[in-house]
């Protein structure tokens, strides 16, 4: 009984449900932005890299390696607490968004690039011999094959990074976890955390299930 | 050597073996033919219990295979099996493939096992490839290593499931030669295959299976030359046309 009162306290839940709901909307908005910008910039970098300009490629590889090596949380903290020293004070939302987008960009670039290079030279030659240009060959022959190769690893990576939206709570972003945490300290009751947990599961279990489906749908024979 | 009686096998609703009786004498080579899906592989796999028969009895070398008290892993050492797809372990050398069970089930030391393994590889003419990994060997060589893997355990019986079907034509001969030598050394063998020439020269008996049952059996001359059943005649006509 007291367990239910503590963790599933209806009164507390009702009071803080609107906060959590607002947090849920923030999480969804943030996640959507991260996915779109992260994948977009990642693909752009991979395409840039396929142009084969040496110094540019070194720069790309370095940036990609850096954002793969750094824990996302330190990037968020660095942007939020560090950038004001350079005269720009991004909001918690922007700090979290930019950080996660950079991380996703790095992982996505690597995966897209691997996909692009997996397409044999013969495909390029065949297409170019029919008179297609570089861009046309890329767009109509190489990319469609490469994207298919990259879908399973990309999906799983995207899901993992999107879960990082919870890290925003560390820089006082009122997404689900942030909203739930402050509700817990205001109410001295963990029920908001229960609600928050439920919100995450409702949000991410379908996403994980989707990832599983994608993996089987696009499975390759070894 | 083998007494299998009234073997039935169901896969769910699918009735794959419908009461197969098979007796194989010591030193006999029984050659099994039949259309794809007729249950040849399933029958072989029942003979070392890779597949559990739904009913029936199997006695091999005096041991009741389906008895719950039988230590199936020890019995399987006495029954060699060679697969269509070789199934060599890619992370081990040829010698490693051959000696794994010798050491782990036979309990031999590494040195003893290596000696046994090398002798087995010698028998299939591949002692010089002992240190090669499967990926470095041709299909025919891989299949000969697979045969050596079974031979090294000194089996009393050997089961072959289409051992040459996955091979390029020019590699088939080497594998058949090894099988012929095994036969001449007195090995009891059950061979599922389409290699009619091998059957003619090496088989004591040919069995034709269709729809999970033995339709006809006899000497190679009888079954290939003058098949009694219409289904046998049709099947043999087909494979001879394509041979």
């Amino acid at each position, binding site marked *: 009984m007291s367990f239910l009162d*503590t*963790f599933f306290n209806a009164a507390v839940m009702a009071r803080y449900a609107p906060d959590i709901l607002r947090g849920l909307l923030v999480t969804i908005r943030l996640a959507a932005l991260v996915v779109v910008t992260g994948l977009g910039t990642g693909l752009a970098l991979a395409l840039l890299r396929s142009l084969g300009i040496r110094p540019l490629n070194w720069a790309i590889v370095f940036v990609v*390696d850096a954002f*793969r*090596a*750094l*824990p996302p*949380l*330190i*990037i968020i903290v*660095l942007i939020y607490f*560090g950038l004001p*020293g*350079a005269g720009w004070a991004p909001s918690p939302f922007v700090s979290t968004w930019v950080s996660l987008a950079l991380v996703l960009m790095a992982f996505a670039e*690597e*995966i897209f690039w691997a*996909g692009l290079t*997996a*397409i*044999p030279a013969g495909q390029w030659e065949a297409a170019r011999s029919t008179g297609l240009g570089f861009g046309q060959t890329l767009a109509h022959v190489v990319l469609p094959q490469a994207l298919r*190769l*990259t879908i399973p*690893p990309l999906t799983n990576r995207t*899901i993992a990074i999107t879960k*990082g939206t*919870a*890290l925003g*709570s560390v820089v006082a972003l009122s997404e*689900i*976890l942030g909203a739930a*945490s402050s509700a*817990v300290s205001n109410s001295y009751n*963990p029920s908001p*955390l229960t609600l928050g*947990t439920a919100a995450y*599961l409702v949000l*991410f*279990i379908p*996403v*994980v299930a989707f*990832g599983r489906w994608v993996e089987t749908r696009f499975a*390759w024979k*070894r | 050597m083998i007494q299998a009686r009234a073997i039935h096998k169901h896969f769910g609703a699918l009735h794959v073996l419908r009461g197969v009786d098979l007796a194989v004498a010591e030193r006999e080579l029984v050659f099994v033919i039949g259309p794809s899906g007729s249950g040849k592989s399933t029958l072989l796999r029942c003979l070392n219990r*890779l597949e559990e028969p739904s009913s029936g009895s199997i006695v091999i070398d005096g041991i009741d295979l389906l008895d719950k008290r039988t230590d199936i*892993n020890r*019995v*399987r*050492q006495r029954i060699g*099996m060679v*697969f269509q*797809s070789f*199934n060599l372990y*890619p*992370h081990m050398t040829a010698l490693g493939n051959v000696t*794994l*069970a010798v050491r*782990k*089930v036979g309990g031999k030391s590494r040195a003893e096992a290596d000696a046994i393994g090398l002798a087995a590889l010698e028998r299939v003419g591949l002692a010089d490839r002992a240190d090669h990994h499967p990926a470095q060997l041709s299909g025919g060589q891989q299949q000969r290593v697979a045969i050596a893997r*079974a031979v090294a*355990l000194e089996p009393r019986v050997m089961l072959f499931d289409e051992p040459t079907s996955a091979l390029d034509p020019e590699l088939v001969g080497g594998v058949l030669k090894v099988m012929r030598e095994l036969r001449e050394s007195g090995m009891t063998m059950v061979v599922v295959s389409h290699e009619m020439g091998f059957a003619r020269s090496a088989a004591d008996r040919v069995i034709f299976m269709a729809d999970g049952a033995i339709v006809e059996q006899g000497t190679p001359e009888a079954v290939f030359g003058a098949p009694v059943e219409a289904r046998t005649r049709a099947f043999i006509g087909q494979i001879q046309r394509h041979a």
Partner: protein
Amino acid sequence: MIETFLNLDILRAAWPVLLHGLGITLLLSAMTIPLGLGAGLGLALLSTVRTRWVRWPLIAYVDLFRAFPPLVLLILLYAGLPFAGIEMGGFGCVAVGFFLNTGAYYGEVLRAGIESVPAGHSEAARATGLSRLQTLIWVVLPQAIRNVAPDLLSNTLEVVKLTSLASVVAIPELLFQSRQAQALTYNPTPLVAASVIYFVVLWPLVRLLSRLEHRAIAGRR
């Protein structure tokens, strides 16, 4: 600008604490990786049992922890469980939380590895008389681990990065120490230094991984 982001005086003062933090980060990793691998191996082996009574709860467990942001799990243990009278302390929460999280991920990787080994190989092994366990140990697992080595390594990289979350529950690892130093000096230099340390430590792993993954994707065609 350089005065702000790379202040040498502050760097010199903060250096010892940062190194100490790095030590704790490596310690946390050294604790979490074997625990997670062990749990993952257990899960992967369980998943070879084909009964649905094992399979379904297993998939549910793995998916649950894949859906759970690790920070939420950590906060739940750290700020939620005390209300039920369970106080594990920051370190205990990190140990349990990371164990559950990384175990699920390693489990998924190893399961995929085991499934990538052709059934024929186990059959051939069983046909030579090896037992189920012997087949697993000598034939299936070596191949499985080799087949998913890039994923195992990538997961391990993620585990090291994951330990930065421990800063949230006041474990004095690298990120925590750098934030303390930054708060004390009102200067981001310690954060920059910590980033550089993370990069220097993890870059070789990232390079190696990028090569392996490249080969893995190319091999899928």
